[in-house]
């Protein structure tokens, strides 16, 4: 069976609340679903507590709004997730830049 949605995640309130349409989650593009799923998966694996990520996300949204950035909700989510992973020593930002370039120029094309 599918894992049951966790209310702590689904019911986030305020600026951190998940974008919805007619009560359903909305992922406008596939990558938004992937980043959402990765974040939830890593919290299941106890890489971090959900509330740690939520606090990071709230801070990221506040920062973006202060700076007047027009970034989307899931773009801010991505930044928050990267920052949390970096803080936990789980992600090397240099490696991410390099790997992104590999996908961009077609050196890699893993299918997810």
């Amino acid at each position, binding site marked *: 069976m*599918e*894992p*049951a*949605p966790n209310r702590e*995640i*689904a*019911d986030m309130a305020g600026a951190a609340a998940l974008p*919805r349409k*007619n*009560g*359903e*989650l909305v*992922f406008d*593009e*596939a*990558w938004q*679903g*992937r*980043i*959402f*799923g*990765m974040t*939830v*998966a*890593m919290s*299941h*694996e106890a*890489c971090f507590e959900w509330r740690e990520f939520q606090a990071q996300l709230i801070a990221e949204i506040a920062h973006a709004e202060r700076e007047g950035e027009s970034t989307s909700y899931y*773009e801010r989510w*991505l930044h928050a*997730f*990267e920052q949390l992973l970096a803080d936990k020593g*789980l*992600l090397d930002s240099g*490696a*991410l830049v390099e*790997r*992104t370039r*590999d*996908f*961009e120029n077609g050196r*890699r*094309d*893993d*299918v*997810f």
Partner: protein
Amino acid sequence: MSGTHDDHAHHHREPESILSLRVRALESLLVEKKLVASEAVDRIVGAYEQDIGPHNGAKVVARAWVDPGYRERLLADGTAAIEELGFGGVDLQVVENIPGVHNLVVCTLCSCYPHALIGLPPVWYKSFEYRSRAVREPRVVLREFGVDLPESTEIRIWDSSAELRYLVLPERPAGTERLSEAELATLVTRDSMIGVAVVQPPTAAAR
């Protein structure tokens, strides 16, 4: 839904956004480090997309529309009938909209709601304004939601409680005779199962 991301990888599509590339790179790194399994991500996205939302309730409604026997069982004993479809965990009474009778669900005390069937309650459902006005002036509230009922239509208000939840069985829209049960389910919205909307026939563009 596992299929949604597959079209990413094909070469013949338009250039991928930098954000999409970055997320793929991130997933690739995290999978390599065994911090994430792509199958787990698939399952989570599917669960959140499908389990939270009105899908389950829409399936119940569509079944009742195509199967008169099921409709009867659903109206007689909602709790047992939704268990037939694998949904449960809630004592449910289903109330049917018919010509001349419109049903509206509210929870005047808090925000009791059949989550298992229609997901999370919208913000307005929890608001003091809706909880008080739905009972006092339902016709006005419905008009604000875009449902303009003739004066002759009786409006029945169902006040949910922790013990018993209500679900509206909306009227099947005209012109949907040829649709399959699954197609019908896609027409059924959350709001129509609360009673603040009617189910619309599919638009020409969507067909």
